[in-house]
């Protein structure tokens, strides 16, 4: 909490900047602002922070701006907003904010759930990509962020993907990857929470053993042993 208060003094906002599309290979799509339609991205165009760019399995896009050059490799989706450097304090702030947003106070007079009704599903509208697939692309985009040095925003992007695309939570290798990124940043509480959640996932013996070892290590670490 102290860290968060300190960072409030220095952090005004988490604004990102726009980037220029330097080079495109293959087909790259973009979802701008509140739009419901994915559009094509052209070389030389500017992409704003509210844009999500997506590559297919054979396309790439090179963005530049603010002294940053970033290549989004195939089969990835990335919010341009994530393409920025963050301090650890800013990351903690953002994580706290997500916690505030996602955890409502308990209702005193919690009502029972509505009784079920039956009807036809209207959700059959055609989408460029399925929900599960988009989640995987976003998680892949987050990994690329981390691999290019944007570890803090990568962790945020991964956690958002877990929340909005629950199927991504079952991607054990990438969860190991992001949990290790948290440990690199000394975010031991967050890493402990991550490994604790992973315990419930189906995984092989080696992975399960690694989770147990990490949990033991983190518990001792946090206990000051």
């Amino acid at each position, binding site marked *: 909490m102290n860290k*968060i208060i300190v960072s*409030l003094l220095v*952090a*005004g*906002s*988490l*604004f990102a900047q726009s980037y220029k599309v330097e080079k495109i290979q293959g087909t790259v799509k973009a*979802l701008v*602002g*509140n*739009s*419901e*339609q*994915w559009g094509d991205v052209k070389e030389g165009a500017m992409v704003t922070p*509210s844009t*999500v760019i997506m590559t297919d399995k054979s396309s790439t896009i090179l963005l530049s701006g603010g002294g940053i050059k970033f290549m989004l490799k195939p089969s990835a989706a990335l*919010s341009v907003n994530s393409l920025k450097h963050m301090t650890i304090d800013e990351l903690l*702030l953002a994580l*706290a*904010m997500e916690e*505030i*947003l*996602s*955890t*409502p*106070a308990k*209702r*005193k*007079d*919690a*009502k029972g*759930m*509505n009784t*079920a*009704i*039956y*009807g*036809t*599903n*209207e*959700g059959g509208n055609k*989408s*460029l990509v*399925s*929900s*599960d697939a*988009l989640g995987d692309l976003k998680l892949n985009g987050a990994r690329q962020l981390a691999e290019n040095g944007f570890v803090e925003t990568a962790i945020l992007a991964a956690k958002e993907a877990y*929340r*909005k*695309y*629950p*199927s991504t939570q079952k991607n054990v290798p990438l969860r190991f990857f992001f949990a290790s990124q948290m440990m690199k940043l000394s975010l031991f509480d967050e890493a402990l929470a991550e490994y604790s959640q992973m315990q419930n996932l189906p995984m092989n013996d080696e992975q399960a053993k690694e989770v147990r070892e990490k949990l033991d290590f983190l518990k001792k670490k946090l206990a000051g042993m």
Partner: protein
Amino acid sequence: MQADGVLSMEANPTSFSSVKDLALGIVFGTEFLSPAVSNLYELSISKTFGASNFSLRYSPGYNKEFSLLKNQSVIGQDSSDVSLKTSLKYSETFAAGFSYKYSEHLSSGFTLHYFTENFSQDAIGAVFSDSSLTLIRENNTESMSFINFQFGGDYQFSDNYRVSMSGSNFIKIKNGSLSDINRSFEMKTPENIRIAFYAKPYDGLGANIVFETIRAFQISVQKEIQLFGLYSSLSCSYFGGLSSRGVQPSLSLRYGNLSADVTALLYTSQKQKTGSLNDLTSSGISSILNNKYCGNKAMLQLSYRLQTTQEKFVQFVDVSVTRAIFPMFSDLFLDAPFAIAKVVNISDKAVTVKPGSKIDKLNNEIVYSPSVVIAPKDTVSIPFYTAFPETYFSSKHELSFVTFSLITENADADDNLQKPLLINSSNAWDGEVGHLHYFVKKDFDYSSTAAKRILSKYKNTLDTTSSALLLFQQAKLLFNEIIPEMLYVADPVASNDRVQFPHETIDVKGGDCDDFSVCLASFYESIGIETAFVDYRGNDQSRHVNLLFNTGLHPSEAQLITRNDKKYFIRKDTAGEEKVWIPIETTERSNFTSAWEKGVEIFTNEALDNLGLVKGTVQIIEIY
């Protein structure tokens, strides 16, 4: 605090002002002369009526008699010598007093003392017959009565410090006259001013100092003790002046309303048991009980104080009304006090106080707050909570008053205090978005009926909507039926803390952001759609409120309503399951989709990008 000693018995006319109701007293005394003389000294009664106290004393034992033999005798008929003598008798038979207590600190009063003096002198008389002269003893008796007026005042700085001043013998009303020969025997009553200081600087330890202008003084110390489990005190005085000096030890025992005081009066100065007539006439006596011819005394005083009026244990110092009354927020006043009182325990014991309040026009009976125990002489802050019926409704502000009361073991309140109070109108709002839910819930019945009536028009649409999308679809239909009809009208500046009930917003087809948000939330909640207010606070004190609502969709189902994951947020629902929530800007009245997109834009910008959620400038407030 110790009363005056024998030197200045009843010297302070206000000494009865501490009697709270009725006091009865009886004093027996023994004077150790040869032989010892025992007597009923006095019977007294004192009664208080409000701030006034009346006292009456009958004192048959307040008398002093002198017999003086003359150097003359006559031969009686039986040939025996009959000595001639002079008898002087002084007595104070009655006293009556009145005192008035102006405040807890100040009182004054006066006392009238009724004295009688009887002087009888034997003389030789001659009886002439035809053949002889016979000398006989004649007795000439004269008496006179007078009333001595005594006045005084008393100021109590605190429970432990007091000063009193009184004057006596300045006014004397005589009844009758004396011959020249008896005038020399009159009581000497010099004008006297008496000043006394009483102090109790340490717990259980007190001291008195008394000065009188007739060159008399008294110094006393008193120690409170526990004796036989009773409240007791031991005291000892040294007094001096006029014609005598001495010590006066005393022991007091108190049991309930009954008290007993045993006092000894031991003279250290030489006492005269005999003396000449010239000696008596030259110095005289100025006090019946205390003069140079008195012997040592022992006195037993029994007192009974009857308490037919209740004793006050606690009282208000002040009460501050800390919160305005908003009739709609009845729950809030159960958890947070609307007034804080400073209350002092004026008694010598710990007292349990039950605070009560009754707001005129809002409460039909006294509302009691949790009891508080106050230590003796301690002052504490006591919170007052209240409750009022949800059925109360007033469209305008009302000026009322609240009666605060302090209940102890007494049947009636120890103290009451009234304060004016403003009861806001039922539409009044304190500006806290967290309190808007009261307006949401108030109209649930209306909102539920109206929502169902609207949705029934879309029966076919809703019947064919998938169960997953039902809440979202209902929310969309209700928005499009209600909000586009509305006219945005800001509150008048003078009443910017006013919120309409949903039925009022529907009736007038207009309102501002809080009215629209309350109305839509009430409709949504009444049919089971969870909502939350989003409170945006600008740097310029401007406020804005809109809504988040729970679509009921699992995150994996979000694509049923949007392909853009920036347009929703994942929040837990009542059951703790993660669901898709979307923000709605209720003042964007064109249609649901526009309101949704505007809501996303505002929320993303203010709550997330500008860190409003962690800075506290944006708050999400659940409605329940």
